[in-house]
């Protein structure tokens, strides 16, 4: 069923009784050409682009919970292309362009909203660093504007500019940055993949990876063994454990990242504002909730909830930056398990096992990458060659020293 303004109107008039389930719930077949482990944003996008760009449809996505139960439904939805290093820059640029056509492509409203992102800076040195980053963005063909303090004030007058902790000097403004509805992204890719014949299998946990003579032959699951010629591991925070089933040890430590949302308020914050010095960023959802977050809890964790010290720290930073939000009531807090790499950049590569591919290491920034990660992983699985915008996301780059350390914080997983 194609969605359109007319279909919404028609269903509205007739009691919304005509909507059909958005995807099938098939039983797993005994064999597929390709199995994707993980039904998060990246796994679903990979299946979608395998079908759409490469005409491959004998594919199953195996998800241990329900589709979108992982980080794709837990993130703070920021979409941007403001990277600096060659390797990252072209990849996120490609991703943002895909976002800009995604709703038409998927025939699905993912509520992509290019409301603009303002990264604040608070010293001369930080201004120089942001100017340099902005130039890299412009050189990549994306947009960036360096705002002085008055420029920032015109856009977001409600900030406390004179705060004693980190007085605001200005900001880097990325107009094409913004947000999207996270669940809708998972659902839109799921629907698109299903319509092209991909089997989406929920409540199906992969418990083993079968390897014969150095080649993958299938997987063991809680719903039985399934054979496959090629397998993609796209399991985000659980990547280390899934890769261990194939005897691999990854350059990944799983950490907890928290986020917070307030009760719904009238529109008050029109942009995404980031306050890196204070470890705080915020936007307002279309429902009116203020959605905000900060840094990792900093210790390895598989609990989808965090501890109070980071919560308190984030609240303090928020109050320093925008005292006006002090009376908003927190509705919910939660956490997600993020797959941190030693340089803060991701991995999209083949492994030493024939037919086994891996897409992981998204740290806390993989939501914006969803379309391009799917696009490039599909390219890799279909052709056996890395896509040109993802060719530096190599699994062996740590051993060979070809790091992509965007923040320059060194080989420690929790510092990126």
């Amino acid at each position, binding site marked *: 069923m194609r969605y359109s303004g007319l279909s919404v109107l028609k269903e509205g008039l007739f009691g919304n009784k005509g909507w059909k389930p958005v995807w099938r719930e098939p039983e797993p077949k005994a064999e597929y050409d390709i199995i994707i482990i993980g039904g998060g944003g990246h796994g679903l996008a990979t299946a979608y682009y395998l079908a759409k760009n490469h005409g491959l449809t004998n594919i199953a996505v195996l998800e241990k919970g329900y589709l979108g139960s992982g980080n794709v439904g837990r993130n703070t939805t920021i979409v941007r292309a403001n990277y600096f290093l060659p390797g990252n820059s072209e990849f996120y640029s490609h991703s943002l362009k895909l976002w800009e056509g995604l709703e038409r492509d998927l025939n699905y409203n993912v509520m992509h909203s290019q409301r603009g992102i303002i990264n604040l800076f608070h010293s001369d040195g930080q201004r120089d660093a942001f100017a340099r980053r902005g130039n890299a963005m412009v050189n990549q063909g994306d947009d960036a504007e360096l705002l002085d303090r008055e420029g920032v004030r015109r856009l977001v007058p409600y900030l406390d500019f004179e705060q004693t902790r980190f007085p605001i000097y200005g900001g880097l403004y990325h107009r094409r940055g913004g947000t999207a509805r996270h669940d809708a992204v998972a659902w839109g890719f799921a629907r698109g993949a299903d319509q092209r014949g991909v089997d989406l299998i929920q409540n199906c946990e992969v418990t083993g990876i079968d390897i014969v003579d150095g080649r993958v032959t299938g997987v063991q699951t809680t719903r039985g063994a399934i054979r496959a010629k090629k397998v993609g591991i796209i399991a985000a925070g*659980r990547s*280390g454990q899934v890769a261990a089933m194939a005897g691999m*040890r*990854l350059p990944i430590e799983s950490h907890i990242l928290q986020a917070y949302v307030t009760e719904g308020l009238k529109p008050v914050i029109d942009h995404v504002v980031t306050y890196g010095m204070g470890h705080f960023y915020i936007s307002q959802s279309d429902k009116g909730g203020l959605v905000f977050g900060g840094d990792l809890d900093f210790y*390895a964790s598989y609990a989808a909830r965090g501890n109070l010290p980071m919560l308190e720290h984030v609240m303090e930073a928020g109050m320093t930056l925008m005292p006006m939000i002090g009376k908003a009531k927190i509705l919910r807090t939660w956490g997600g398990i993020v797959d941190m790499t030693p340089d803060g950049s991701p991995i999209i590569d083949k492994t030493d096992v024939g037919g086994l591919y891996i897409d992981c290491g998204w740290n806390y920034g993989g939501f914006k990458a969803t379309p391009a990660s799917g696009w490039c992983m599909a390219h890799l699985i279909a052709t056996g060659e890395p896509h040109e915008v993802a060719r530096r996301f190599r699994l062996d780059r*740590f051993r060979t020293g070809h790091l992509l350390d965007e923040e320059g914080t060194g080989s*420690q*997983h929790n510092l990126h």
Partner: protein
Amino acid sequence: MRLNCPLCGDRDLREFTYYGASVYADRPEGGWSEAWDDLLHLRDNPAGETNDLWYHELGCSAWIEVSRNTVTHAISDTRLLAERKPAAKGAKA
């Protein structure tokens, strides 16, 4: 979450800095080798029991090994790194 420093007692988490699995303290001998890739980058990353390395930065500056569960956040034991369990030392568990 609070951590029990063997020297200072039960202290707020915020006083400590985290350095990952305690095998991080076992630096390889000599110049570059695969062992350095292991130390700096690769992780067992277990979901469950782990021995971590923490530094009591805002306290007595002791290096502490913490037995902790990464799924429940329960802490079962702490000790000075210098008094590490032989089993944990160098083990990849």
